[in-house]
């Protein structure tokens, strides 16, 4: 195949060991098929930025030993309970945790989007989130009078990895109203996308679709992964597989159960 559309493993090849990888929150279009492929490939030492939170994706990558540093505002399985591999890894100190708050991650990616070195943000002062972040600074606002404000350095990920409903042959990707996917792509050096399907025609040619389209200009490679967010949902398209997430929560509660989950659902390719 030529152009941006590649096989899943080819598309993921630019995600090197040690890369800073940004991924979206659990409801925005999480590339789960790609995540399983990365685990199968044995990716190591990722600096994962989950914008601004994560669920199954971060938990799986942590449990499979792919993460060195995790930068996010929360990891949880929501109604299915705590994220067990995340909690175990933080308690045992096997990952480096950079605790954040949701708008700080949005703002730090927006700084990269604009090509500026930092963004200011309200809040945070007096919080231990700030206290444990040596990379965040407090200044007196140059436009105020005794007005302390936090500055956040830009986050410039090596790769943004997202899942979306569809793309066209030119590499344009329809993300709909999940605009944070565009912020991620604008901020990252490269963007890898998996999609449920290929759209026949040019997404930018239709004004209704163009407004929700991430232009192919930002996109390095695209792979087709039908229902590639499974077992998470894809907003406005399909819901979560609640039964599977409940099964995951039960199995991942222990290291042995988690290893069995990997054997059954990650290393063994799911039948299409």
């Amino acid at each position, binding site marked *: 195949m030529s152009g941006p559309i590649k096989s899943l493993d080819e598309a993921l090849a630019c995600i090197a060991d040690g890369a800073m990888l940004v991924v979206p929150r659990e409801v925005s279009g999480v590339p789960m098929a790609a995540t399983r492929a990365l685990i199968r490939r044995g990716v190591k030492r990722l600096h994962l930025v989950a914008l601004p939170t994560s669920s199954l994706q971060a938990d799986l990558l942590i449990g499979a030993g792919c993460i060195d540093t995790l930068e996010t*505002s929360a990891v*949880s399985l929501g109604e299915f309970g*705590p994220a067990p591999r995340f909690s175990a890894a933080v308690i045992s100190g096997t990952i480096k945790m950079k605790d954040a708050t949701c*708008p700080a991650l949005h703002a730090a990616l927006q700084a990269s989007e604009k090509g500026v070195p930092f963004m200011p*943000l309200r809040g945070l002062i007096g919080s*231990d989130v700030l206290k444990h972040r040596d990379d965040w600074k407090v200044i007196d606002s140059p436009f105020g009078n005794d007005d302390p404000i936090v500055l956040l350095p830009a986050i410039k990920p090596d790769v943004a990895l997202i899942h979306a409903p569809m793309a066209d042959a030119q590499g344009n990707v329809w993300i709909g109203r999940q605009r944070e996917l565009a912020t991620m792509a604008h901020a990252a050096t490269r963007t890898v996308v998996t999609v449920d399907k290929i759209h026949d025609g040019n997404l930018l040619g239709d004004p209704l679709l163009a407004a929700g389209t991430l232009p192919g200009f930002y996109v390095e490679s695209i792979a087709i992964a039908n229902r590639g967010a499974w077992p998470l949902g894809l907003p406005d398209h399909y*819901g979560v597989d609640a039964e599977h997430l409940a099964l995951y929560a039960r199995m991942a509660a222990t290291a042995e159960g988690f290893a069995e989950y990997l054997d059954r659902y990650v290393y063994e390719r799911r039948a299409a």
Partner: protein
Amino acid sequence: MNAAPRDFRSEELLADVIARLIGDVRHVAVGNASPIPATAALLARERGHGRPYVSLLGSPKNTFWTDGARELFDCAGQGRIDVFFLSGGQIDGHGNVNLVSTGDYAYPKVRFPGSFGSAYLYYVVPKVILFRTEHSRRTLVPKVDFISAPGTNAPNVFRPGGPIALITNRCLFGFAQGRFTLDSVHPGHTVDEVIEHTGFEFERTAAVPQTPPPSPETLKLMREVVAPQLAEVYPQFAAQVFGITLPLSAGTASG
């Protein structure tokens, strides 16, 4: 104290109290997995004939944001959100909330999911209502182990928002000048019980009133008008508390 037979559930009492705390405002936002605050916000909207505007996060049908997840925070930063709800693994007597971990941060005993948007929204939303149904010395502590978001700040820190109240399964605390005051005790609970199960010091008057039970009109509105709306977002909660079951297609919206 022996409680009189009640014709309402504790979820209905809490929602009624929260709806009163919301008051007359323009916009209430409710976080994920918060069915009781969501009930309260929808009840306030029914009583106000469409005001306040209610945003239920996690429900695409009940949020207007089209500019990505950051729009919520940008809205709040501009003062376009008047009421929000926060909880905590630990909450202390100064209104500090901990959503991160217990023990030493570097070597935690228990790890919670994380701070989410609290380290920002607690500062910029004028009325933050703390909500923690489990009222125990485990959750209401003298001092939190990690401050996800502080209850108060030095006067020079920009802070138009902060906590106004803490509601639990036993009582309602008000919050002002960095301290909680026991405003009322829910029917079936006592002041002594509240003291016994609260890890922090709080103010109280000699005679603490009982939390007024929801009126028959409120219960009717909640059960007949609010519950069906709630069922679209929280089908399990609506079925369990209100006995409302929607046709399958309506209750399984994606998102």
